[in-house]
């Protein structure tokens, strides 16, 4: 008998693999291939293998859409407060402070003016990295001010949405942001302004049920989750399997509520094209 026969599995020590620096590679959730992060990032944060669109924050979105060095940020001095004294497992101010530190911004919406392929526009981007892009008073206020700015200067307005919905921690006041932004869009519409709404993964709840669905032209990134109620809520209500691709961009386009599904690589071109067609 050889020595190995007496060995038990618990004693076996597998040699440690060479250490891979944290986050240098990642697995694509769509095609499961190992992706070199740098390469993915250079590809507009899309998988080089299957073109899966990774979620991106507002700053990266602006970098991708606006001509270099033309973006002038606005309304970034608006800070949220805790009008309700909201406490769940954690206090709202505590949550806000943590998010603000991480996101290096006061709330979840970046806005300003810039040029898209030489065309001036007002751009507002919700930031998924700040409390799931949820809409509280500040997000609603920044979107509204952006709309008013576009109305005033007769500029095209582009809002890139990605949101879990209205922010629970500001309850009724969050809800009222839906009415506020929609009312501002009514005025913009009456003045003949062009509003392009860009829906990205995920756009749900109160954001979808207000400004996100009010675009003159509504563009969606491929396979983005777009809906009013979340799929889990629907499943719990109706207790049956949801159809394949339900609430994804392509499905929503088929239902008639999205004008065009546009891959990220084409987004800038498409925005410029629509601005030109509207003569803005």
């Amino acid at each position: 008998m050889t020595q190995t026969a007496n060995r038990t599995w618990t004693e076996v020590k597998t040699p440690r693999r060479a250490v891979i620096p944290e986050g240098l590679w990642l697995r694509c959730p769509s095609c499961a291939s190992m992706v070199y992060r740098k390469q993915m990032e250079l590809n507009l944060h899309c998988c080089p293998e299957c073109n899966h669109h990774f979620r991106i924050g507002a700053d990266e979105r602006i970098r991708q859409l606006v001509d270099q060095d033309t973006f002038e940020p606005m309304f970034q001095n608006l800070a949220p407060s805790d009008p309700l004294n909201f406490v769940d497992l954690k206090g709202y101010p505590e949550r806000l402070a943590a998010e603000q530190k991480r996101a290096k911004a006061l709330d979840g919406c970046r806005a300003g003016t810039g040029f898209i392929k030489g065309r001036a526009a007002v751009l507002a981007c919700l930031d998924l990295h700040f409390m799931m892009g949820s809409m509280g008073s500040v997000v609603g206020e920044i979107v509204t001010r952006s709309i008013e700015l576009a109305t005033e200067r007769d500029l095209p307005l582009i809002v890139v949405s990605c949101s879990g919905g209205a922010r629970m921690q500001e309850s009724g006041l969050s809800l009222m942001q839906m009415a506020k932004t929609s009312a501002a869009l009514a005025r913009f519409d009456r003045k003949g302004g062009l509003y392009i709404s860009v829906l990205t993964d995920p756009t749900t709840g109160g954001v979808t049920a207000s400004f996100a669905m009010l675009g003159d032209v509504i563009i969606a990134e491929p396979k983005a989750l777009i809906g009013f109620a979340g799929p889990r809520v629907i499943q719990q209500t109706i207790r049956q399997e949801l159809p394949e691709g339900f609430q994804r961009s392509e499905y929503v386009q088929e239902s008639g509520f999205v004008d065009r599904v546009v891959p990220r690589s084409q987004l800038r071109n498409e925005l410029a094209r629509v601005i030109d067609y509207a003569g803005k």
Partner: protein
Amino acid sequence: MSSFYQLEFEKPLLELDRQIEEAEADLKRAGGVSPESSSPDALAIGSRVDALRARRAQTLIDVYSNLTAWEVVQVARHPKRPQTRDYIDLLCRDFCELHGDRRFGDDPAMVTGFARIGPHRVLIVGHQKGRTTQEKIACHFGCAHPEGYRKAMLKMKLAEKFRLPIITFVDTPGAYPGIGAEERGQAEAIAYNLREMSDLRTPILSVVIGEGGSGGALGIAVADRVAMMQYAWYSVISPEGCAAILWKQANKTTNTAAAESLKLTAADNLRLGIIDRVITEPVGAAHRDPAAAAKAIEQWILVSLPELERLNADELIARRYDRFRAMGAVTETASA
């Protein structure tokens, strides 16, 4: 009263009701109290009944003046609570119902039609939850579909055309979350209503009569004046939904905490500037005296409408815009 739906916090009342019933039976056996002949026994029992009744009345007042937010939500959902159709019966004359959205169908969860209130010709729009099991199922328990919101908007545009004021009754747990509703554009239907309502050139009054659940409620509540019944709730999400997300589970403890945190009662919404008026309900809430509740709503309508009708349309929608434009808690800091 034994078949009457009981709320947990009404248990003290239940006990008193039992005692009153017993005492009344005793009184009957003792020959009752009458001006002609009453035994001293019967007189004693009679005064006991009176004392118990007085105590019950006081207890009812006490219970209802100390409700927690979560208990208010339960009152708002009371199966006997008056609904849109009840209020139409109680405070409108000559209701002329109008059906259908002329696009897809007729959503019974949304009731629309012409009616007369006092000297006014108005358009009524309201969520309907349903009373009988059959009606509840047809109405999806007050959860309207996109066709319901489109029906509401179509009729509201009609009201604008004929310069009829619009009265909306809000009573929904939320817009319906289902496959068909999503496919037919639930979000778009609500969003469109929010935008168009802000621009309707006719006065709009909204009353949250029971549940004001999120976007589904707001979809017919972008009004010049918004009132809430004393025991109604209005919030961005139901307490259960909020508890399930933020507390990771919905049970009595977390629901109570969520309801508290969401500041969903009429008094809280008034303080936050979301509504303009709390309409006081009869003692023990609207389901104990629907006619009195309807009267209170009617009074508010009769006072508010003439004030709004004095404004010309431009001024009206400018003020409506300002009303919603001012909402939110935002602090301007010196720099980003």
